[in-house]
């Protein structure tokens, strides 16, 4: 049985989409079911190792796609009024799973909307997710419910923005680290 079939059978309706690219399988699941999905993948299919967890901001990609689609539509039929399909949620969180026993890899993807950037933390299943989740929180502002210690990982605590969001300028917005450190003599 191929990996895809097994995943399909294991997840049932939870799997909303499959993408296969150069031999790697990616399965998309609803954001609220991520804990159940990850747990059953671990227990039933033997994906016992979390090799990475990362976020993606798709806003620019979606904008470009929408523009291209509009152009195409215009060229095809000018008369039809454009029925705007709402774009998919802006953020993604991806889990890269590895089965050490069978040497299989699987990518689990959830899409997180901008207005409710909340995901259940998988730290209860994999302790290894602690820092990656903190990084995703730091860079994209996605909150992980149930995370034991959700602080920024790379930027300092008072940093006011989420720098890997596409609307954040590369050179920053002039944030400077406030030099607060204590000396013994004052």
């Amino acid at each position: 049985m191929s990996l895809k079939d097994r995943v399909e059978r294991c997840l049932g309706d939870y799997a909303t989409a499959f993408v296969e690219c150069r031999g790697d399988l990616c399965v998309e699941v609803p954001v609220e079911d991520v804990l159940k999905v990850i747990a059953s993948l671990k227990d039933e299919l033997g994906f016992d190792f979390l090799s990475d967890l990362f976020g993606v901001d798709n806003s620019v990609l979606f904008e470009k796609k929408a523009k291209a689609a509009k152009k195409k539509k215009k060229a095809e039929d000018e008369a039809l009024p454009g029925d705007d399909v709402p774009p998919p949620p802006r953020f993604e969180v991806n889990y890269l799973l590895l089965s050490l026993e069978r040497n299989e890899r699987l990518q689990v993807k959830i899409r997180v909307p901008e207005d409710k950037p909340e995901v259940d933390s998988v730290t209860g299943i994999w302790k290894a997710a602690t820092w990656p989740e903190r990084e995703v929180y730091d860079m994209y502002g996605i909150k992980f419910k149930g995370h034991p210690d959700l602080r920024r990982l790379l930027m300092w605590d008072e940093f006011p923005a989420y720098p890997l969001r596409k609307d954040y300028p590369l050179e920053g917005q002039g944030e400077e680290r406030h030099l607060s450190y204590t000396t013994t003599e004052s």
Partner: protein
Amino acid sequence: MGFQAYGGNGWLLTKMEQLINWGRSRSPWPLPYGTACCGIEMMAALAAGYDLGRFGAERPSFSPRQADVLIEAGTITKKMVPILKKIYDQMAEPKWVIAMGACACSGGVFRTYSTLQGIDNVIPVDVYVPGCPPRPEGLIYALMKVMEKIENDHPLRKHALDLVEG
């Protein structure tokens, strides 16, 4: 300037300032503060091949309190700034700073939200070493420049001025 002295059997006549400068410039103990790839080049300069010890930088001092020259080799992120400042403040006077590499001098290729655009935003720098990374020869040259600077210093005059003003 150099060290001028008159000597004979059992005696030596020179200026106090020159004696102090001679001592200081011949023992610039470095504090190796390598935060990125430039650190590797600094290690090469300190190790046997280039042997910074020939110039009196014999003992890399990992405690800031016993160091004279802070060699800042590598990128400083803004998160790192308080630590750099703290280390600099912990060093006892007199102290000198070498900014090694494009990153330490100006932020280098990292013109981003997270990188400090030159450590001279936070601490005073005596010698800048350009390059990405500079070769160990560059660091050695910088250390010789620091020694030159020390030799042209007037430690006692400064002290006297402090006394007058203070």
